[in-house]
């Protein structure tokens, strides 16, 4: 067990020119068998391993990662955290996650820079405003903080926003969740990796799963590029590649993988101290601690695994952001990238057992998985440890696409992440 990070370790390292820091997580050799193997060392996978070790006492856990740790969607999202979802099932799941976020830095002894700066979801039409009223009321009934604001109240809070009537989609108001905010995406992956590693979890990078050994619909082990691993329980947390992994087990998935693009500007002085998103015009923006404007787009409509999308999507989003904030029109953009998101027909995740005993899937987070990182790992760890879903994720089974119990969150999810 490594020493905790604290002001004292920082001070003493400061006096020693910071030469005594240890690697954040161990890099052990792959063993030939594990009790539980998690595929995918992103935020969700590492959180799952952490909670399995911490809350369920599972000792012998490996997390396999085909690339490098936290190099997939964990590194590619726009870091927005909120829980103002419409339906009870999803609101409860995301609120569970938001509550874990609020204590996360202390829990894993790693500063994830969670900043509850509030999130505005803008409405541009009468119907948007009716939907916002409905969602805010539903949130309040579920004990989630949410307010419906008119255009003037939005302007009071964000002075540079353009609420002029003389735009293509005038801003009529917004829903506002004060407890929502942003977190540092890499720190989440590194923090969970360190905390899990301290519990003895083996994190194996550059280890790609190439096949599954399944006998009589029961998990026996995984073939990887580093050899065979004997295991009876496997949790797949592979986001955009979930269909590829599911195919190895002969499981059909209702998932389509789409590119989702985002871009950041050059660093600016502090100018935007909250998060603004708009489903209607397809864009959302916040400012990072480095000063970059972090801007996200809607998904590219075609399926793809390329981690890049089409330029006209960026153009569309930039146009939307400039309409909301005309003063950003001369800001220069620094970097642009794409991630592969796993979208489902009802914009809700799948956290579920499968027809193969010992094989579990946590996927389908689509465009908004980052906010759920701790909650997703927490309930998925419960699902794997007990071979039964946690009450919070029982509704998010793969079965719902055959029973018809879909949870239609397109209103609250959609473009808004």
């Amino acid at each position, binding site marked *: 067990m490594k020493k905790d990070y604290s002001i004292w370790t920082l001070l003493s390292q400061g006096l020693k020119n910071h030469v005594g820091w240890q690697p954040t997580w161990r890099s052990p050799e792959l063993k030939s068998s594990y009790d539980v193997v998690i595929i995918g060392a992103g935020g969700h996978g590492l959180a799952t391993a952490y909670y399995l070790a911490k809350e369920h006492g599972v000792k012998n856990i490996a997390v396999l990662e085909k690339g490098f740790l936290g190099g997939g969607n964990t590194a590619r999202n726009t870091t927005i955290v909120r829980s103002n979802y419409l339906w009870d099932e999803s609101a409860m799941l995301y609120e569970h996650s938001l509550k874990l976020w609020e204590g996360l830095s202390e829990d894993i002894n790693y500063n994830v820079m969670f900043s509850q700066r509030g999130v505005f979801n803008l409405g541009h039409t009468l119907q948007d405003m009716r939907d916002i009223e409905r969602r805010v009321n539903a949130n309040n009934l579920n004990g989630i903080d949410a307010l419906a604001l008119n255009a003037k109240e939005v302007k009071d809070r964000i002075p540079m926003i353009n609420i002029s009537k003389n735009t293509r989609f005038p801003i009529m108001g917004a829903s506002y969740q004060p407890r929502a905010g942003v977190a540092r995406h890499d720190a989440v992956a590194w923090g969970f990796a360190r905390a899990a590693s301290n519990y003895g979890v083996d994190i194996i990078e550059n280890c790609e799963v190439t096949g599954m050994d399944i006998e009589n619909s029961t998990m026996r082990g995984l073939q990887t590029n580093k050899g065979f691993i004997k295991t009876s329980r496997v949790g797949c947390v592979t986001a955009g590649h979930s*269909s590829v992994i599911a195919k190895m087990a002969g499981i059909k998935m209702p*998932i389509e*993988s789409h590119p989702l693009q985002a871009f950041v500007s050059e660093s600016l002085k502090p100018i935007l101290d909250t998060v603004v998103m708009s489903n209607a015009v397809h864009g959302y923006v916040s400012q990072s601690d480095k000063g970059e404007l972090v801007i996200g787009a809607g998904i590219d409509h075609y399926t793809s695994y390329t981690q890049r999308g089409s330029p006209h999507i960026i153009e569309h989003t930039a146009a939307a952001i400039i309409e909301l904030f005309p003063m950003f029109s001369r800001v220069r953009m620094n970097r642009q990238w794409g991630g592969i998101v796993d979208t489902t*027909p009802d914009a809700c995740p799948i956290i579920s057992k499968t027809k193969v005993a010992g094989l579990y899937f946590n996927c389908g987070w689509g465009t908004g998985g980052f906010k759920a990182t701790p909650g997703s790992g927490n309930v998925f760890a419960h699902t794997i440890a007990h071979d039964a879903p946690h009450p919070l994720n029982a509704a998010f089974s793969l079965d719902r696409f055959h029973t018809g119990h879909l949870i239609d969150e397109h209103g609250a999810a959609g473009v808004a992440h």
Partner: protein
Amino acid sequence: MFVINCPHCQEAREEEEFHYEGEAFIARPANPEAETDDAWGDYLFMKKNPKGWHWEMWNHATGCRKILVAKRNTANHAIAGSWTLSEARKVYDKEQYDAEQATK
């Protein structure tokens, strides 16, 4: 960004002119009354979503507004060809048949 050849217009046009219409050749159950919930769920929701060659439909939305089928590689956006629905079905069926013969 890629360019798609519209078999109706006989012209190669930019992707922006087209609207993606999803996986091609998803067959509606032939005998709806007799099908199980599982079969209906599969038909409605389950997707192949392959990493590699994908048969998919596009609508030439700002052109002739007709549906076409393209075979596109989702790993690198290469396009092997595009056809009208009926022509594509023939190519697709032959490909399936050849793949079946090869595994025998």
